[in-house]
């Protein structure tokens, strides 16, 4: 039997609330590495990649739903970071800038995929092989229910319009504030909130529907 989703909250990751977002030391080190790299210090690239790539890959993975594709997009994103490094503003936070470039890479990929639909079946997360992974340390019904819930989220995310998906991902999983997400997406704060909220409604409805069927 699948339990209602609200009983499973203890298995779910906790993300900081919007108001509490402040750059941690790791983020400051990333900003510093990006700043040095923008000034022409080629040696800073390794640190920049080490600190920035995991988060960028996570964002791309959640956007496209395919780990192999996310790796390819990550490479392209960091090539573009390298190409555009001279345009990075001194003293600016690096993560929103890198995520914005990652988002550009993904959108360009989507455009190419639309032009060649037969060869890019996995761009929307339609791949059969990719299974969601959850940090579960329990067995039995609860674990099954949590896994099922994650699968519902993965499927629903893949089916969301890209505008809604990216707004939701930046706010929910990347921990950006609404203002930062709006800057990354090149949209107004109001538009970002509406897109994220619509994505949330779709995901919530899918989870509730799944929980209802399981009872």
């Amino acid at each position, binding site marked *: 039997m699948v339990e209602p*989703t609200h009983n499973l909250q203890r*298995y779910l*990751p906790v993300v900081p*609330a919007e108001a509490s977002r402040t750059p941690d030391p790791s983020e400051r080190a990333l900003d510093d590495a990006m700043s040095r790299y*923008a*000034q*022409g210090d080629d040696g800073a*690239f390794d640190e920049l*990649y080490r600190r920035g*790539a*995991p988060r*960028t*890959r*996570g964002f791309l*993975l*959640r956007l496209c739903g395919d*780990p192999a594709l996310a*790796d390819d997009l*990550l*490479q392209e994103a960091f*090539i*573009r970071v*390298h*190409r*555009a*490094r*001279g*345009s*990075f503003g*001194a003293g*600016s*936070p690096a993560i*929103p*800038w890198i995520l*914005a*470039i990652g988002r*550009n890479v993904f959108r360009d990929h989507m455009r190419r995929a639309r032009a060649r639909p037969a060869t890019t079946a996995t761009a929307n997360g339609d791949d059969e092989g990719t299974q*969601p*992974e*959850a*940090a579960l340390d329990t067995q039995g019904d609860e674990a099954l229910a*949590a896994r099922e*819930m*994650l*699968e519902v*989220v*993965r499927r629903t995310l893949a089916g969301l319009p890209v505008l809604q998906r990216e707004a*939701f991902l930046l*706010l929910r999983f990347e921990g950006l504030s*609404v203002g930062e997400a*709006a*800057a990354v997406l*090149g949209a*107004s*704060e109001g538009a970002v*909130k509406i897109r*994220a*909220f619509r994505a949330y409604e779709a995901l*919530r409805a899918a*989870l509730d529907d799944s929980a209802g069927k399981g009872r």
Partner: protein
Amino acid sequence: MTAVKRDLDLQRLLDIPDPFEDAARSVPPTVAIGRRPPSPSRSRVRALRASAVGAALAYDAFWLAFFRVHEGGRSTTAVVVGATIPLVAGGLAWSAAVRRGARGLGPAVGRIVGLTVSAVSLFALGTLLFSPVNADAQASFWQGAATCLIRSLVFVAGPLVLTALAFRHSFAAASTLKSASLAVACGALAAVMMNFVCPDNTGFHVLVGHGAVMVLAGGLGALVGRWVAQA
């Protein structure tokens, strides 16, 4: 939908679990460093942009000499006002694109749009307010306006190309809007040059013959901006 705008609603996003939590934790593959193409540092980008501005002014100065600066018929004040209005408008549009913004991704989109629309509006209103009205409608109005429009296109071509080169792969976000703003600024520079070349400073002639290039250039910038200026 007004309820969505309350910050409280954002807390509800936490209800949704992360299906890629573990997969996102895996170590990304290392990037092939040898394949990285050369890229300019921040100081080189600054130098490149300054050079582009200088080259654009030199290009327009050449065409100014070619078309010849109009002499006589207009007061110095009229010439200064005629140059100041597009200059200020161009400055507004330029600042919309190049300002760093609080997060290093440029100003908010509303501000970019506002500044760019303000630039074009300022030019239109300023021209209509400070330029003399056509005393009598001339049959040759459209012919004169078309001639000036063609000349202004010549003036804008160089700055547009140089700006595109200087801002290539520069904008991580809102590249279409920022490219349009830069192109409007280039159009405004062309309008400044036309003020020196053209003896006709009547409102509607300046608006159509000298100012339309701002809108045309802005449209072109918006069309090609994503391919040229997106990082």
